[in-house]
């Protein structure tokens, strides 16, 4: 056997090298430390400059190599309620925190590869959303995507992707995928249109969104849970936060309150009408307006509300959540349409890890058994070894391309990889058989024939995959795209190299 390293073989080798470079995350091998996966917005950690993607190297001078190192140390440190100093060393500098709470960050090991697994394997929440009762155009959906992403970001959900999704029927929908959030959060943020209105005697003073709201107080000084106490439903907590109105809205407020009378009560002097807060046309709270505000052009006002629960802790949490929601819709304004969730999946990460392991086992055994058949048929160890090598190299290139374009490998993509390997095997058998076809004298002619068959099979597979890219709101796109990448890599890169190797074996 004499294998000449032709340009086709070199091309394959170059592709393999590039794929490996794109798959392997070298940081994972050379950096000591752990990765900051997310930082809670508006937390001390965030304010001091900790960000997603930084690598945490040490805490208070103690080196952190594993997640256990970190959690053990932090758990031991934040036992009392007092503020303590924490020095966090990252690859982007040192950060000093003063807080009575552990840093509000989520950490993970630095991944060894750049492969991203899809939601159905890694866990997370996915929703397919459409406008209620109307069909939206692509432009309208684009606008909605912006508003919705803004709302999710303002709410503080990390790792979220909001994408338009067009299907075969021409339905424009939005696909929201979130790594962390629970389906309840998502449902609330999406299914509420979030139309906020503040009215006095049924006259609108201001609404949510940037036209009327200049800013919303969200830090500890300007937003807080004030008091909790027993109520008819168990417990109830009140929250309040400050809002800065735009000049326009402040003038309107002055004009309306100017017309009102002052009522004197034992608790103080208030105007005759209340400020009623509506969300999606439902009254959520009514606030008394102090006498001093009558006719005043004031931009600073305070909004309050309450949350209740069976125990005090629940009430506190509900109040905090309601406040958060209200702040979000005040900042982002109302969604332009009423939305409905047509598909909602929340996949637990529990099974994901085993899953990938099991699939690898299954794939490996299947590959070995298929090559045994080839060994049995051709009685040539070299050829069967080559088939395994080339099929594996094809998988590496597919994964390399997936990393390069940031493709998330989901269940459908795995089916796509399987389809590719199957096709690859078929093609390699055709090449092996044609190369031994004694009825054609020249080896070159034999390979030409083999490629005519392979090209034919490739083109039919290619065109039959096209409709799947758009069918089913893109949920099967993973299969179509992965298979198209895979069979294209096969036909244009691995098969030509394989045929050159077979040439070497045969001659």
């Amino acid at each position, binding site marked *: 056997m004499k294998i000449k390293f032709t340009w086709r073989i070199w091309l394959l080798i170059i592709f393999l090298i590039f794929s490996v470079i794109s798959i392997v995350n070298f940081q994972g091998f050379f950096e000591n430390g752990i990765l900051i996966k997310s930082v809670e917005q508006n937390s001390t950690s965030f304010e001091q400059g900790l960000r997603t993607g930084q690598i945490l190297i040490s805490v208070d001078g103690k080196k952190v190599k594993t997640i256990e190192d970190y959690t053990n140390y932090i758990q031991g440190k934040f036992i009392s309620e007092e503020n303590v100093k924490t020095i966090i060393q990252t690859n982007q500098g040192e950060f000093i925190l003063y807080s009575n709470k552990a840093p509000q960050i989520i950490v993970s090991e630095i991944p060894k590869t750049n492969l991203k697994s899809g939601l159905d394997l890694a866990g997370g929440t996915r929703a397919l959303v459409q406008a209620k009762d109307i069909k939206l155009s692509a432009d309208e959906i684009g606008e909605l995507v912006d508003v919705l992403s803004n709302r999710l970001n303002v709410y503080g959900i990390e790792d979220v992707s909001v994408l338009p999704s067009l299907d075969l029927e021409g339905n424009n929908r939005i696909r929201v995928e979130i790594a962390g959030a629970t389906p309840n959060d998502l449902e609330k943020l999406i299914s509420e249109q979030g139309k906020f209105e503040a009215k006095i005697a049924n006259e609108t003073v201001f609404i949510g969104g940037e036209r009327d709201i200049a800013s919303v107080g969200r830090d500890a000084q300007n937003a807080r849970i004030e008091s909790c106490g027993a109520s008819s439903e168990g417990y109830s907590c009140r929250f309040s936060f400050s809002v800065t109105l735009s000049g326009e809205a402040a003038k309107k407020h002055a004009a309306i309150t100017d017309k009102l009378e002052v009522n004197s009560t034992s608790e103080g002097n208030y105007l005759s009408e209340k400020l009623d807060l509506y969300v999606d046309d439902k009254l959520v709270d009514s606030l008394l307006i102090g006498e001093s505000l009558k006719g005043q052009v004031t931009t600073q006002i305070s909004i309050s509300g309450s949350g209740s629960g069976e125990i005090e802790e629940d009430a506190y949490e509900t109040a905090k959540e309601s406040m958060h929601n209200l702040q979000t819709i005040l900042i982002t304004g109302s969604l332009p349409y009423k939305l409905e969730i047509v598909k909602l999946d929340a996949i637990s990460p529990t099974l994901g890890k085993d899953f990938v392991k099991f699939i690898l086992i299954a794939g490996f055994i299947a590959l070995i058994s298929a090559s045994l058949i080839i060994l049995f048929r051709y009685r040539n160890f070299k050829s069967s070894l080559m088939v395994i090598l080339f099929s594996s190299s094809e998988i590496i290139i597919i994964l390399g391309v997936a990393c390069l374009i940031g493709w998330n490998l989901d269940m459908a993509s795995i089916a796509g990889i399987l389809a590719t390997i199957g096709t690859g095997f078929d093609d390699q058998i055709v090449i092996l058989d044609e190369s031994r076809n004694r009825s054609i004298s020249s080896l070159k002619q034999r390979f030409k024939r083999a490629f005519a068959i392979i090209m034919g099979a490739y083109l039919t597979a290619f065109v*039959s995959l096209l*409709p799947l890219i758009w069918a089913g709101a893109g949920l099967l796109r993973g299969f179509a795209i992965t298979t198209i990448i895979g069979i294209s890599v096969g036909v244009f890169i691995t098969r030509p190299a394989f045929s050159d190797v077979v040439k070497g074996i045969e001659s």
Partner: protein
Amino acid sequence: MQEQETPQKKQWHDKYYKLLLLVPAFLLLFSLSYLFIFYSQNGDIMHRDISLTGGTSITLYDNLEKIQIENDLSSKLMDLNIREIYDLITREQKGITIETTSDGEETTEILENYLGYKLTKENSSFEYTSSSLGKSFFNQLLLAIIYAFTFMGIVVFFLFGKQKKIKVLITLLGIISPILFFIFKVLTIQQALIFSFLVLVVNLIIYLKYNVPSLAVIISAFADILMTLALVNILGIEMSSVGIIAFVMLIGYSVDTDILLTNRILKKEGTLNERIFSSFKTGMTMTLTSLVAFLIALIIVSSFSAILTKIFTILVIGLGFDILNTWITNVSLLKWYVKSKNEN
């Protein structure tokens, strides 16, 4: 030794190849009538799971008795369907999947009340599809398969057909429906389904008139799909949206061997039977390697993934039928065609 065998084989196959066609013809007829009866009874051509009808599926990572839940909840949740999940190596039960056509909130509430704890993302997975979306998915996937079939037919005709004008004609016919439906949006999906099906039939008639080998390839692929679908229904397997992928994969694998066969037979090297036999050797290796790989994968995945189990089951059944349809249906039709052409 082979040389003595071949003449005998020749005689046998030359004598009976037309008669052999009766086997797939009978099976195809049976599948068609079974599907017809199935349709008239169920109003549908397959059993659909909740991803295509709409409904909720909740997987609990807890040791629960399947029968117990069935008894307790079947009156509260509509069309209840329960499956257990096992660990691949220890065979220990890892969880249970509950499928129902009831909607998401209702199902969660009933389950939480029954179990006495809250469902969180740590202890469960949740999937909900609205019924309108499920139906829309189903129609789209059906249309995707018809388009896949039409496009595949066009490529096959480009490979084996000769007449340029006809190539242009079938291509134009093939893309009218996608253009009207997808780009100009003047057809509803039902109209597109009917229209594209009619185009497919017209194209088949054109293949019959101008290029029988192309027709033979498409008939074999079509028979593969129909026979597989019939058996899948008989086995009571529910189709999911991801399961439909398997049918598209099947089109690909089915056509692979057919193209190999047609390519070799239409080239005039050696006798007709030699050409058939050499294709048979290559093609069977191709199909057998895939079949064995899928069968092994099927055994492994069946304990932990319902989705992959469905895909592999369909592929194994499909490849089984493909052996029949490539080496009887396609071979006999081609042989018939080549022989009658030689006589003229």
